[in-house]
């Protein structure tokens, strides 16, 4: 009876390890705090109507940033825990974690950083910026977009679920290699949590990718041919095409692993005719393109930033576009370089080695192109540009080591060593994460109407660079010494400990950088009068997103712009724009259907993890019924009349004038540093308590 109701779930599953209990307490405390604040300020309705059920890609983009930001802290904490264990665990000391805990932590670190941090930020940026860049008011399917986002949130909750309801996480490495991930070697629920968090969020990614391909191909402003599309949109298009190509493969592979574990089939098992090598192939056919899905929008961001801050058009637009298309095409043909060591024939290895090396060509073209863009420009070194310059140095190291790893016999020595780990961190931190930071600091004024604090931003940048060198240069050296990855313990005779300790220190410096980034955002909001962007175009931008207000109205553009060149807004600024009449605007209505479907999807996944059959069946029926009900809803849009648009625009305009009058008073104000911020916050809290303002808040 109990088994029918609750499956494998019982009291023993509840968190009882110190680190899971700590996690549970942290999550519950955070949840309670949010509930209390929302109830106190009576914001529940506002949250539901304005944010959670919103189909506005700008709001969804911001929600992606918030989730991604929290997950960055969670994944970063994992990284520090990994480094701490490795710094301690030499010789007689076995550190503070058992091997199993340690393995769960690095698995979670990998999954969270790739799926729920990098993907979150990339999707957030694409959501917010792409419609603005192509002059669209919404997406091809606003509903698919909220559904994709909420499926992603369901995945995030699933990956952290073991904190709340217990069990464990996978201890198999981020790709859950077979046959280790099979029932035979991993009998616990960890791998099942892994399967369902990736499955649910992965389906969301597929839907999102299809939606953005449709949006970019079908909803561009009049006159914007593919050859005049901004480069970030190009990078996003390449990335989304890749995602739509390979994510179904992940879905299929995860189902096969699930069948193996749940139904006892033999796709990837060692016995019964299963082939673990097939799994390795399938997961990397998706896994390799996955990192490029993250990388290509970042290439787009850098192209935009270099061009804007050099105040020059990109040197060779076609080369940049072809470079990105080249990278994304080749990236689909290189997956085998992740397992040269599995014993394929020499010709197979040589082919995939060659393909991998070829990727260096379009990538170098992009770098040379950026150099040529800066040539004879007038370069402003503000934080977005700093992130670009930092990216080049770090990514160059990652690129060089990447091509080294593409030489099969060299890979035999370097594979699975810390050298490899350092390599992909160079590319993912240097390329993707710095790209994201570059993009966020570049578009922050567009998103919030406030420029980011430069002083603290620059300190954060230097913390990241120094922290990166401290943690990853020793990692390269350790790799050359023969240290393999994922070690929870090593002999003291190896002499590796000092390097692990330096890596931990580097990790702490990076943590300081992250803290400074949070401080930077807080300081910017404190000095928001000084940093206000009243023009909508704080950087002297070139593309359409800068032609509208900051933050843009919910319909993005009151009048859809007409595009003549690739740097559409740059051209517009040179010529006077003729006044046009406002027109009726059709906007999508908010909907909660995405949330309902995701709740059912979450319960379906959860039910499969614990083998609660009735819940799984019920949830799947729930998904089907809610989807059918949604298809009968024909009133998904509403019309904003021309008069209403005019009223909104005029109100915005008046407000803008008021603000710009005020802003000029604050322009010469002193820009806050870290110390000023600390003093400010200290005084704020003192006055907050003394004046008892919280009573009326």
């Amino acid at each position, binding site marked *: 009876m109990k088994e029918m109701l609750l499956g494998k779930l019982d009291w023993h599953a509840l968190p009882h390890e110190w680190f899971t209990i700590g996690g549970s307490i942290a999550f519950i405390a955070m949840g309670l705090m949010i509930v209390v604040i929302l109830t106190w300020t009576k914001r529940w309705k506002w949250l539901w109507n304005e944010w959670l059920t919103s189909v506005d890609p700008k709001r969804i983009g911001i929600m992606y940033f918030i989730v991604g930001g929290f997950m960055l802290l969670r994944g970063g904490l994992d990284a520090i825990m990994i480094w701490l264990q490795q710094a301690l665990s030499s010789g007689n000391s076995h550190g503070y974690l058992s091997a199993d805990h340690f393995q769960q932590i690095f698995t979670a670190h990998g999954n969270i950083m790739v799926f729920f941090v990098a993907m979150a930020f990339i999707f957030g940026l694409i959501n917010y910026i792409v419609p603005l860049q192509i002059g669209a008011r919404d997406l091809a399917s606003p509903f698919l977009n909220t559904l994709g986002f909420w499926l992603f949130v369901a995945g995030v909750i699933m990956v952290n679920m073991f904190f709340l309801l217990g069990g464990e996480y996978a201890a198999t490495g981020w790709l859950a290699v077979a*046959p280790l991930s099979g029932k035979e070697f991993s009998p616990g629920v960890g791998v099942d949590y892994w399967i369902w968090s990736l499955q649910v969020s992965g389906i969301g990614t597929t839907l999102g990718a299809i939606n953005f391909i449709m949006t970019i191909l079908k909803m561009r402003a009049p006159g914007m041919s593919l050859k005049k599309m901004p480069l970030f949109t190009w990078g996003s298009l390449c990335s989304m095409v890749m995602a739509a190509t390979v994510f179904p493969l992940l879905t299929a592979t995860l189902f096969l692993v699930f069948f193996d574990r749940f139904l006892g089939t033999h796709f990837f098992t*060692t016995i019964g005719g299963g082939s*673990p090598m097939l799994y390795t192939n399938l997961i990397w056919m998706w896994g390799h393109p996955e990192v490029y899905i993250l990388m290509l929008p970042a290439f787009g961001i850098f192209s935009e930033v270099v061009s804007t801050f050099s105040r020059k058009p990109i040197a060779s637009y076609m080369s940049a576009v072809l470079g990105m298309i080249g990278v994304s095409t080749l990236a689909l043909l290189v997956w085998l370089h992740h397992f040269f060591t599995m014993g394929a024939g020499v010709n197979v290895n040589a082919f995939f080695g*060659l393909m991998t090396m070829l990727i260096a060509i379009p990538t170098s*073209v992009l770098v040379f192109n950026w150099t040529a863009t800066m*040539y004879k420009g007038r370069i402003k070194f503000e934080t977005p540009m700093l992130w670009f310059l930092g990216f080049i140095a770090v990514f160059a190291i990652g690129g060089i080591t990447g091509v080294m790893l593409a030489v099969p016999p060299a890979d035999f020595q370097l594979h699975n060593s810390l050298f490899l780990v350092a390599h992909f961190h160079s590319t993912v931190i240097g390329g993707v994460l710095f790209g994201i930071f570059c993009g966020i600091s570049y578009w922050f004024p567009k998103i919030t109407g406030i420029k980011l604090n430069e002083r603290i931003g620059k300190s954060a940048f230097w913390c990241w660079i120094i922290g990166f060198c401290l943690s990853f240069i020793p990692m390269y050296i350790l790799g050359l010494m023969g240290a*393999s990855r994922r070690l929870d313990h090593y002999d003291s005779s*190896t002499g590796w400990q000092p390097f692990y300790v330096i890596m931990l220190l580097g990790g702490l410096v990076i943590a300081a950088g992250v803290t400074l980034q949070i401080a930077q955002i807080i300081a910017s909001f404190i000095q928001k009068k000084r940093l206000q962007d009243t023009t909508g175009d704080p950087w002297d931008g070139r593309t359409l997103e800068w032609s509208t207000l900051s933050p843009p109205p919910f319909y993005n553009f009151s009048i859809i712009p007409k595009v003549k060149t690739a740097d559409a807004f740059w051209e517009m600024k040179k010529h006077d724009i003729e006044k046009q009449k406002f027109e009726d605007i059709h906007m999508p209505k908010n909907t909660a259907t995405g949330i309902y479907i995701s709740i059912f999807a979450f319960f379906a996944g959860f039910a499969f993890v614990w083998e609660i059959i009735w819940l799984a069946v019920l949830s799947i029926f729930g998904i089907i019924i809610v989807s059918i009900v949604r298809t009968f809803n024909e009133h998904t849009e509403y019309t904003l009349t021309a008069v209403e648009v005019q009223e909104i625009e005029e109100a915005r305009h008046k407000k803008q004038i008021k603000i710009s009058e005020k802003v000029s008073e604050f322009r010469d104000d002193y820009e806050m540093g870290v110390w000023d911020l600390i003093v400010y916050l200290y005084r704020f809290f003192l006055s907050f308590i003394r004046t008892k303002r919280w009573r009326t808040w």
Partner: protein
Amino acid sequence: MIDNKKNHSNRYLKWILVLLLVNFILLLKYLLENKNIALLNPKGFVSNEQYRLILYSVGILLAIAIPALIVLYSVAWKYRESSTKANYSPDIKHGKFFVLKLWIIPSVFIFVLAFIMIPATHKLDPRKTVESDKAPMTIQVISLRWKWLFIYPEQGIATVNYVQIPIDTPIEFQLTADEAPMSSFWIPNLGGQLYAMTSHINRLNLMAEIPGDYPGSTPEITGAGFAGMRFTVRASSDQEFESWVDEVKRMPDSLAMSEYEELIKPSENNKMAFYSAYEDKLYETVIAKYISLGGHTH
């Protein structure tokens, strides 16, 4: 005021560059002098070839990356906003061959590297016996949870987590696994790794050239006892190897099927073990086990 600020940042930059250069040289010196860096101090034929390949590829890549980076950063610095000397011309037309150059320069370097890579891949095929005057020797390796079993079919002995080999003799390690997830067999000083998995034989050919004790491990994760799944390789002269074999042959333990069944049970941080004899056709039995269970072999 502006001039002052500019000079200040110029001086600042100079110091950063000097510091970077000094650090880089110190790092290089450390890498070249430290004997603890296994991949840069190869002790065998294959690892030596792989070491050279690593050096060549780094060299070729640095030959393009260093100039490219220098150009990029000096362009960025030269055309900074505060510079009074640089001229700003946003409408500059690049020459006819600009785009061509953009694509050809990196292509040339990559093709040079490819011309080194493809023959090297063939030459260092792990299945190929290393060329030597001496007759090659076979060692069968079974990856277990979480230890390595070595079987010497020619000598009739078996060991756990320890393998002794004569120098200058080509060795073929025949890798497989039994009731264990996929693992990887790696001896950094002697040469590159290959996966060991059930129902398969992967052949890794290596040859030690310098006597010594070298650590070996699995860099591929295999579960809880993964970090302790280490073994030691002793490369010694022929005579020492022979006398070691004789010594093992006098050891009391032998690996009959019942002992083997005991050995394959999961256990962590295993000590070395030596068996004077082993069950007849043990290795073949292990392979056949998975074929009879519906597996396949290549």
